[in-house]
């Protein structure tokens, strides 16, 4: 049987089996937030969660990522590449939308002329054990971007919560191999599988947010200078929460941080956001994206126009984090709705 069953109380066993060879990441509650953390106690794992506050992209692409460390000795410079690049990771309990975001991230980091070896390496060494969303949130809209709450294609192993147990399915070769290793897993029954399918259907129906993204790139393309941008950026406070916590945002900055009083330091990559007013400030003082208007526009265009143009898919996974967390409640769904409307208006004009 391809599909196995993992009892809920067996998670500890699963953890103990894998933690020897892997860094075991799973959702945990830290303070008031669910985040993906490195597990030291399997009891901490929280699987009945909507989604983590900080997306698991943090594991591939940490907020503060050491590129290398250096020592300066007069004119001599010693550079030390970071170790631990080949450590193996498991991300346990990742949601389908976040798993999908890894595809998007890797599109970006591994394609093109220049590849990001560090992140590629991390991805290579990471196994995703995902879990379907039995109860998606009202702000979830993965179905609008051709995903669904039980989308398992982007995982290595996919779990479905069957109340007292999980249905376990190996998806990728990597996943299948891992399941083989976990020989103590019992086979799933047909009833289990059916129940999982049932849950999947239910979950898909539970996604209430439907936004029309079919033609979005085509609408956006000619409307770079449309006045709608002023409208949708009016209440934006320019904080960048939306992009910091977006699972697909990849902007970064590279800086050298020195250890005070010692002649050493490290070059680190830190997250940055295109919503920051300094982000595109030229040294000359000129800033092509000087106000919220251009910055909000860039974010939307990047996700829904440029990314599709470059990689053939939307740069959004529908996780709804930006909708949930925008301080000013500048709802992405509402923005998209407005964008869709501009085109209709245009058509109306043509017909009249």
């Amino acid at each position, binding site marked *: 049987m391809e599909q196995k069953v993992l009892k809920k109380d067996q998670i500890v066993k699963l953890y103990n089996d894998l933690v020897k060879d892997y860094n075991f990441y799973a959702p945990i509650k830290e*303070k008031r937030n669910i985040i993906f953390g490195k597990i030291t106690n399997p009891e901490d794992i929280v699987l*009945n969660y909507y989604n983590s506050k900080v997306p698991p992209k943090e594991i591939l692409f940490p907020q*503060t990522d050491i590129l290398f460390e250096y020592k300066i000795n007069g004119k001599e410079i010693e550079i030390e590449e970071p170790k631990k690049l080949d450590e193996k990771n498991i991300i346990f309990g990742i949601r389908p939308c976040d798993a999908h975001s890894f595809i998007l991230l890797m599109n970006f980091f591994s394609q093109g002329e220049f590849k990001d070896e560090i992140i590629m390496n991390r991805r290579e060494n990471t196994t995703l054990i995902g879990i379907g969303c039995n109860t998606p949130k*009202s702000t979830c809209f993965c179905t609008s971007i051709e995903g669904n709450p039980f989308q398992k294609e982007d995982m290595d192993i996919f779990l479905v919560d069957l109340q007292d147990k999980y249905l376990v399915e190996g998806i990728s070769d990597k996943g299948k191999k891992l399941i083989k290793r976990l020989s103590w897993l019992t086979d799933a029954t047909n009833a289990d599988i059916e129940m999982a399918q049932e849950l999947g259907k239910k979950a898909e129906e539970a996604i209430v947010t439907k936004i029309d993204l079919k033609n979005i790139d085509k609408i956006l393309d000619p409307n770079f200078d449309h006045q709608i941008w002023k409208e949708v950026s009016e209440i934006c406070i320019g904080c960048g929460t939306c992009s910091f916590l977006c699972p697909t945002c990849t902007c970064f900055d590279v800086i050298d941080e020195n250890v005070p009083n010692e002649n050493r330091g490290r070059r680190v990559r830190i997250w940055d956001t295109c919503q920051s007013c*300094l982000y595109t400030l030229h040294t000359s003082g000129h800033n092509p994206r000087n106000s*919220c208007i251009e910055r909000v526009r860039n974010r939307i265009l990047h996700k829904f126009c440029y990314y599709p143009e470059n990689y053939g898919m939307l740069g959004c996974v529908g996780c709804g984090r930006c909708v949930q967390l925008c*301080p000013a409640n500048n*709802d992405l769904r509402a923005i998209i709705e407005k964008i869709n409307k501009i085109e209709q208006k245009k058509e109306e004009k043509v017909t009249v």
Partner: protein
Amino acid sequence: MVIEDQNKDIEQLIRDLARKLLKEKEVDVILGYTKGTIPLTSLPIVIDKVEDVDKLIWNNLCYINLAKYLVPRIPTLMNEEGQKLKVGIVSKGCIGRALIHLSVEHQIDLENIKIIGIPCNGIINRKKIEDEIGEREIFEISVSGDNIIIKGEDLEQTLPFNEYLNDLCKTCQVKSPPSIENICVGECLENPVIEDDFSDMTEFDSKTPEEKWEYIKNLLDTCTRCYACREVCPMCYCNLCFVDQNQPVWFGKTTAYSDIFTFHLIRAMHMAGRCVGCGACSSVCPMGIDLNLINRSLEKIAKERFNFTSGIDPEALPPMMAFDMEDDQEFMMEED
């Protein structure tokens, strides 16, 4: 009157005044709140047409400090020629305070602003409710009597209103904007006298430095330095924030705790005597960090050291703008 009725009345007042102001061309736009797209939120809105006035709402979730939108850096409230529009702004107490303080700091011209003053009965703390509800989704939130009623998936819960307010709102004494001549069109406070014993701070103040350190560390260390607190703060209007300055780079940009707390420490330093206690920073923090403690102590420092409360008197200079021979200097070291 119970809270929901009060809110209904206020909402009606806002709409009526807004309609009147727009009709009579007293203002070009009205800055207010409208219904948020998800529960526990509200959405700031700029209204320039009379027919949109009914979009304006008022409830206990209007946490954004609208004064932020009037600060020069934000270009949306300007006309085509780049001149500032005349704005009617829906103001609870802390927004009024922010406006007054901003005018003290020469950032806005009160002449151009009509304050639609309303009494606020407190802003519900989203984080507390989320903590209470846990990992369950909320569909609807309403206030009834002294309670907050929360409806969600498999969920109907009643929570006492007073306990789920922002801590700042519990101690707030400026529920309506302090009145400034010819500006308020709704309810305003006449010459408010602030008396505050800061008894809520006693417990923290009695901690040892070590305990305080641990407490604050525990509070702040999840900070991702997204600066939402800064961006939403009506008093944070610098062209170039100290965290973004280079030459010199004052401190690191990483998420090491030393960098995080330096950011918050210096930000607090910059807010001293200026924080208007709106609590927007806490409301918007994506990581749920509640900065109430810092904000309260800023008010405490200003009040107890300099007998100053920000945003009350447009003529009074904030502590950092003035100096006095007679200031206390018990903290200065003396010989034994």
